[in-house]
């Protein structure tokens, strides 16, 4: 099939239609356009037919009705990141599109669909100059209004059009519509199915422009589809958490929302506290009383919880705190991702307070990491901070399954009869852990306190005892790192170029490594999921095999690199890629960095394998080719 590049005035070019097993679609509109709903239905359709997908949503400043965008990447094989540039853009409003411009970059040969009635003409589109899109205008509103009988269904009409044009999962869309509206009414299901059908019929009969994108895949069994926040909620329940207290905050609220619904089914309790200080206090209280407990919040909430974290440290109370990071400081960017709460997590709260910091690296990992968090908190009687971020917490991803029996469910170390004969709650021990009772256990009565204390819990201001107890608490660190070797390597072990990042940055690292490896470019990625205590020995061993290390993070001040530096010796050739939050790290920038820093120079053929569509400008030096880039420092 041949296609015609449309809008460029006077120029007509021909090219082969790209058959692709992955596709990235952006949908932009105002609240009433149903852009997000369409994205969700498409994600559900994809998962139903066994496809991999990642759906990210973006909102403007308005609470309801403002500009929204959904970006969905579908793949027959695993997709690791949000996808760089769009293959397809559906734009209900160009005014809204301009607000998302930096987030929604278009491929040179993309397809753009927009409403027929729009006053903006195809040659006036406010897109990057020099692109060669295929532009298709569709009467979405007219079809919805006149043929379906309800203007609100225009987003579903649009899905019908997309499905027809690009061979997207049609059966899945039908199932997704059933799924979404089954709790509402049969009429709604019928209405939406009608809209879907009208959309695809319209495309079949009326859209004759050929276009360069065609998606192909084979169906496989339905996948799970959830957000990182949902994965944390069900993971926590699986770990035995039966108490949650929190205070609503974007982008963490869905954890609490899921738990308010599920927790009572398992005789658990969720309290909406008056503020985050109270939430943390309630969690510590419940845990002191013997119940596995957690809170979930974002940066501003964690700031309020600092004093409570210290209390959990010194009183040795298991305490799980999830921080779904957003842009900071202060209110910052509530709906955007960042990785700049790392130092706060590790070194936050006054005094020398040993806390454990874990970081999930994708949606599935949220399910596992929260369970490790409970295991560590309970086994070692420490606060554990789980550093998720908006990109992990609020994106929807599909995957084959989760493993509910993978991770040991820890039970707290209770005192034995002998321990109770002369019970010392804070008894100095080799492991740093001492048996812990709770109200209700006879003979185990003790005083928990935030004040420096003797082994029996009574206050002391003895410097000697204080030092002993501080040592006891820090002694937990080495056993934790031994027992929980939580990190991933990607790519060729032994490669001398290494990529190091944490949390949601893993997506881009894994994808870059995968692409490069396929092209025979040797590179290895490492993603620690335990950040404090840091697996220093492991990292040091790995560093010794590298000649070049690229550290990648979403923190303007480069907190991760600063932290690494404070803990160990880093390879002498070091490249630091950092940027502030708000926009996710683009794959192209990382690929460029890799190519630039490879030991052996990368051939044009290899570049073609990494980037067959030529969308990443791999031939140009990154410093001139990228306008939207992180700060890069060669150190």
């Amino acid at each position, binding site marked *: 099939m041949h296609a015609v590049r449309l809008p460029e005035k006077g120029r007509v070019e021909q090219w082969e239609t790209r058959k692709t097993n992955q596709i990235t679609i952006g949908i932009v509109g105002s609240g009433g356009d149903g852009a997000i709903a369409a994205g969700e239905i498409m994600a559900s359709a994809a998962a139903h037919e066994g496809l991999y997908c990642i759906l990210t949503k973006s909102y403007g400043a308005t609470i309801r009705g403002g500009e929204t965008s959904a970006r969905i990447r579908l793949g027959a094989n695993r997709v690791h990141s949000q996808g760089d540039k769009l293959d397809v853009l559906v734009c209900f409003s160009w005014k809204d599109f301009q607000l998302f411009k930096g987030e929604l970059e278009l491929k040179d040969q993309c397809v753009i669909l927009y409403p027929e009635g729009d006053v903006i003409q195809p040659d006036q589109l406010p897109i990057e100059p020099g692109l060669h899109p295929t532009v298709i205008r569709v009467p979405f509103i007219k079809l919805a209004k006149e043929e379906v009988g309800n203007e609100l269904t225009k987003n579903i009409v649009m899905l019908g059009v997309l499905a027809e044009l690009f061979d997207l999962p049609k059966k899945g869309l039908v199932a997704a519509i059933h799924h979404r509206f089954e709790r509402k009414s049969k009429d709604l299901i019928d209405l939406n199915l009608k809209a879907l059908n009208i959309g695809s019929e319209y495309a079949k009969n009326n859209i004759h422009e050929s276009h360069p994108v065609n998606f192909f895949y084979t169906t496989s069994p339905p996948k799970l589809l959830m957000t990182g926040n949902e994965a944390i909620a069900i993971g926590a329940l699986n770990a035995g958490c039966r108490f949650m207290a929190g205070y609503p905050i974007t982008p963490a609220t869905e954890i609490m929302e899921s738990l308010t619904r599920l927790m009572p089914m398992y005789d658990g309790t969720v309290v909406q506290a008056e503020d985050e200080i109270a939430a943390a206090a309630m969690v510590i209280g419940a845990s002191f009383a013997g119940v596995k407990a957690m809170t979930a919040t974002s940066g501003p909430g964690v700031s309020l919880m600092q004093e409570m974290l210290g209390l959990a440290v010194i009183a040795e109370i298991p305490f799980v705190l999830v921080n779904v990071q957003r842009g900071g400081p202060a209110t910052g960017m509530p709906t955007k991702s960042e990785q700049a709460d790392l130092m706060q997590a590790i070194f936050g709260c006054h005094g020398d307070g040993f806390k454990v910091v874990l970081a999930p690296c994708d949606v599935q990992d949220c399910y596992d990491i929260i369970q490790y968090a409970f295991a560590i908190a309970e086994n070692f009687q420490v606060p554990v901070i789980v550093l998720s971020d908006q990109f992990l917490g609020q994106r929807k991803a599909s995957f084959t399954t989760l493993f509910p029996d993978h991770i040991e469910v820890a039970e707290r170390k209770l005192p034995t009869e002998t321990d109770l004969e002369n019970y010392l709650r804070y008894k100095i021990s080799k492991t740093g852990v001492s048996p812990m009772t709770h109200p209700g256990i006879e003979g185990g009565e003790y*005083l928990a306190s935030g004040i420096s204390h003797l082994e029996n819990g009574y206050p002391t201001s003895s410097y000697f005892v204080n030092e002993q107890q501080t040592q006891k608490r820090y002694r937990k660190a080495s056993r934790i790192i031994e027992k929980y070797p939580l990190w991933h390597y990607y790519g060729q072990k032994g490669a001398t170029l290494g990529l190091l990042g944490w949390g949601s940055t893993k997506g881009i690292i894994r994808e870059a490594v995968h692409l490069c490896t396929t092209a025979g470019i040797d590179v290895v990625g490492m993603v620690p999921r335990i950040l404090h205590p840091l697996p220093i020995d492991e990292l040091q061993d790995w560093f010794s095999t590298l000649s070049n290390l690229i550290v990648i993070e979403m923190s303007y001040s480069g907190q991760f690199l600063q932290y690494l530096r404070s803990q160990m010796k880093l390879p002498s050739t070091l490249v630091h890629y950092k940027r502030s939050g708000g926009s996710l790290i683009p794959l192209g920038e990382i690929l460029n960095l890799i190519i630039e820093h490879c030991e052996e120079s990368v051939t044009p053929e290899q570049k073609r394998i990494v980037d067959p569509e030529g969308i990443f400008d791999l031939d140009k030096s990154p410093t001139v080719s990228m306008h939207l880039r992180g700060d890069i420092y060669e150190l």
Partner: protein
Amino acid sequence: MSSNEDQIMEKEETGNTKKPGYSAKDYKSPLKPIWCPGCGDFAVLNALQQSFAKLRLPRHKVAVISGIGCSSRIPGYLSTYGFNSLHGRAIPLAIGVKLANPDNTVVVAGGDGDLFSIGAGHMPHVARKNINLTVLAMDNRIYGLTKGQMSPTTPLDTYTSTTAYGSYDPPVNMVKYVLAYGAGFVARAFSGNLPLLTSLIMQGIEYKGFAFIQVLSPCVTYRGKAEYDSIRENSEVLPDTYDPTDHKSACEIGDIEDKQYLGLIYRNDNLIPYEDRIIEMRKHAQKGKVIPVGELINLYRT
């Protein structure tokens, strides 16, 4: 100091042979209070021990939660479970303790600063939620532990270490606030009247819901020994004819500031405690089929 250590030794020797019973001294810990002689807090400690004894509460089923302050030292002097937490945070911490296991008796003790300045934000919420706690607000009208600064209940024109020209912040009226917050049990007691204090604590513990007791508990060091007499002069025990179930008269009593009425000011037995609401909610949530937690992932199958 050595006598204190002797006491501990003695306890350890006898501890195994004889199980503690239900006399007031069974609720005493081996720690000797650091309070100044004459401090009103001794009476509160004493009244708590007597209340526990009279109610025959097993020590392991009681948790006393406090914040920071002279008053907040109290859990250390009791042989029950205790938590000496952070300044102002006893209430939310106690809420967690109570909700984790409502079988336990949970008492909160704190100072006027702890509960009505730094921790004041928690009070309206614990009251309206009606969590079954007994809160003892040990009101000495000063910051004791930090050595004599103005507190939220310090009377106007008082010289303290932070009010060199006399205090100019009008004081908080605890009873009035807590009534307004919707508390179902509100009382005022005085360290100088131990029987009344003990009786109110017992009623508060037995009350099914949030019970608030303001205890006028003099700080002899920073407000002077005369505080006892001045409280005696300006207070009066509510007459037997007073009906604490009438909210209107309770508010009238709360409004009176030149005389401190002592006793049970308000009691409403028709409020539902939070724990009961949670149990109802669980029943509701469990009406359908409840799948094992490990199968929750299937809720997300498309």
